[in-house]
């Protein structure tokens, strides 16, 4: 059916993504093997490049890469030469995912109630305060929130660990730092959705029919109101699960986020392309899940 077809499209789409990112990464100047302490003879660098086939024309390198993909081999990392791309992902992804889910939970757990209250009490003080806080959350960059949290909760008051990823209590600050922005977004979106649904005709109709206010809200309005949030949840999760550079950098968390940025900066071609494909795959699957969720939540939606 529809969803299976979409899944089938995933493979060609991922191939295109890999091709585009492969091409992009090779465009930029610089290569992975330039070092501050240069080898005594340029021949050594050339040997290295030959070893990893970097001196071949780009289409040939890509063909080689795709051949590897067919065997499930995403290639060695060019920077961390003892590790393959698969090694790096296998080590980092579970950590990023754990933190990502925790932040997702935080974003939903804080954002949905705030969004609900600000919608239901629209125009009153709860709305003003809640909306202000939500927008505020969206306006402060992560690399400002995190050091401030570290300053207050670990340095000034020794309540929490300052960094690393060793026990559940280590996850508190990173979760908040990561989830805060998204909780603001979720709150705004849910408020939006609630306001829309509350105005809709069928709500008026149901009210006219005499259904109690609270049943009304919870059963009918919320299901539709949450749609914008569901739609946003796809990309939000994709970002969260693949790890945040800022948070992982500041809290020294051994996830994948740092590699996303550093691999591009290091010109580690294979790792960059591998991560791009991973991100794209995740995004596609999540978007599919979002559309599926739509189907469940909104009876008007049909896919052919």
């Amino acid at each position: 059916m529809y969803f299976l077809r979409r899944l089938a499209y995933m493979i060609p789409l991922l191939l295109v993504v890999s091709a585009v990112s492969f091409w992009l990464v090779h465009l930029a100047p610089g290569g992975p093997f330039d070092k501050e302490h240069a080898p005594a003879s340029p021949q050594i660098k050339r040997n290295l490049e030959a070893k990893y086939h970097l001196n071949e024309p780009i289409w040939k390198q890509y063909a080689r890469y795709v051949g590897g993909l067919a065997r499930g081999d995403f290639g060695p990392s060019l920077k961390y030469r003892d590790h393959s791309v698969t090694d790096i992902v296998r080590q980092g992804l579970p950590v990023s995912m754990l933190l990502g889910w925790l932040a997702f939970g935080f974003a939903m757990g804080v954002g949905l109630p705030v969004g609900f209250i600000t919608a239901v009490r629209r125009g009153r003080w709860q709305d003003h305060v809640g909306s202000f806080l939500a927008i505020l959350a969206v306006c402060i960059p992560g690399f400002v929130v995190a050091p401030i949290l570290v300053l207050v909760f670990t340095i000034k008051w020794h309540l929490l660990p300052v960094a690393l990823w060793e026990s559940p209590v280590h996850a508190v600050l990173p979760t908040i730092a990561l989830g805060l922005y998204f909780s603001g977004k979720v709150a705004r979106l849910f408020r939006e959705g609630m306001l829309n649904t509350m105005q809709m005709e069928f709500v008026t109709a149901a009210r006219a029919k005499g259904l109690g206010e609270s049943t009304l809200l919870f059963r009918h309005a919320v299901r539709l109101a949450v749609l914008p949030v569901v739609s946003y949840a796809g990309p939000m999760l994709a970002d969260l699960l693949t790890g945040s550079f800022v948070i992982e950098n500041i809290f020294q968390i051994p996830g994948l986020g740092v590699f996303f940025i550093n691999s591009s900066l290091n010109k580690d071609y294979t790792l960059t392309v591998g991560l791009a494909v991973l991100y794209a795959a995740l995004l596609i699957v999540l978007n599919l899940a979002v559309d599926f969720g739509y189907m469940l939540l909104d009876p008007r939606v049909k896919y052919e």
Partner: protein
Amino acid sequence: MSDQKVESPNTDSSSAMAVASPGARPPASPAQRAWRRFRKNGPALLSSCYIALLLIVIVGWPLALKLTKFAGPGAATWAKSHAPEQLSDGQFQPPNTQHWFGTDEHGRDVLSRVLYGAQISLLVGFVGATVSLVIGVLWGAIAGSAGGRVDSVMMRTVDVLYSLPSIIFVIVLMTTLGEKLKQLPVVKASPALQKDLRLAILFVGLGAISWLTMARIVRGQVLSLRTRPFVDASRALGASPLRILVRHIIPNVFGVVIVYLTLTVPSIVLYESFLSYLGLGVQPPMASWGSLISEGVDQINPIRIYWWMIVFPGGVLVSTLLALNFLGDGLRDAWDVKG
């Protein structure tokens, strides 16, 4: 995959949007009604005043610094000591009468840097948003109007680009474009152009990663407008597709687009600050809010905190973003851009 993902809130791509249509109401034009609604929105009004004030100060301060040169030697030295790139011996001074926002590691006046940085950040935000607007509107409008194969190809491209982690794209863009553009003879000839090249690349780069959502929204709008009676009427009267596009569809999309512009600006400003944190944003010694905050964040440690280096740039950034958000919300409410 940025930390602060650049998208105009995906929100309303899901909930259907309609532009305020002339209904069976007394003959106040949509614009007039929108203005009336806007006026009633307290936070939005406050925000627009704040932004207006900010713009005046941002433009006025550098002007004042330049003009005081003509007001005598005392004023000239005052102007020099407050120039944003002027180093001095007074490192890390807390706010005082000489320097209202204190000084940084190089003895530079933080107030001046915040205001000059504001120019850069807001410029990047607005120009970047405009770039994304132009690309997005054109792309979406063409795709929506053309339909069929063209539409399919164009939107599939958007899908592919959407799946790429944006940071890879940005890094490649910033490094590659910078080097390639430098080689152009027109650039080599003009020192002024070379200086501003980095800024120009930032504008283009940031705009280039934010147009995707705009394109989707515009296409959706165009698709729904295409089936409207007034468009059919135009076609029946013999108007060419281009004319329909330009005279009917684009103006109706306009309202939505403006609203999204005001909401894209803050997210681009945020993304620029993220890039500056990574060292990919503006070049030193130029400042942007992002680079100033990045410098300030460096100063957070258990021993001694130069709070003015993060509070002032951060405070100004956050309040401006707040104002832009409220303004955008107000515009959206006023234009009645929701289901």
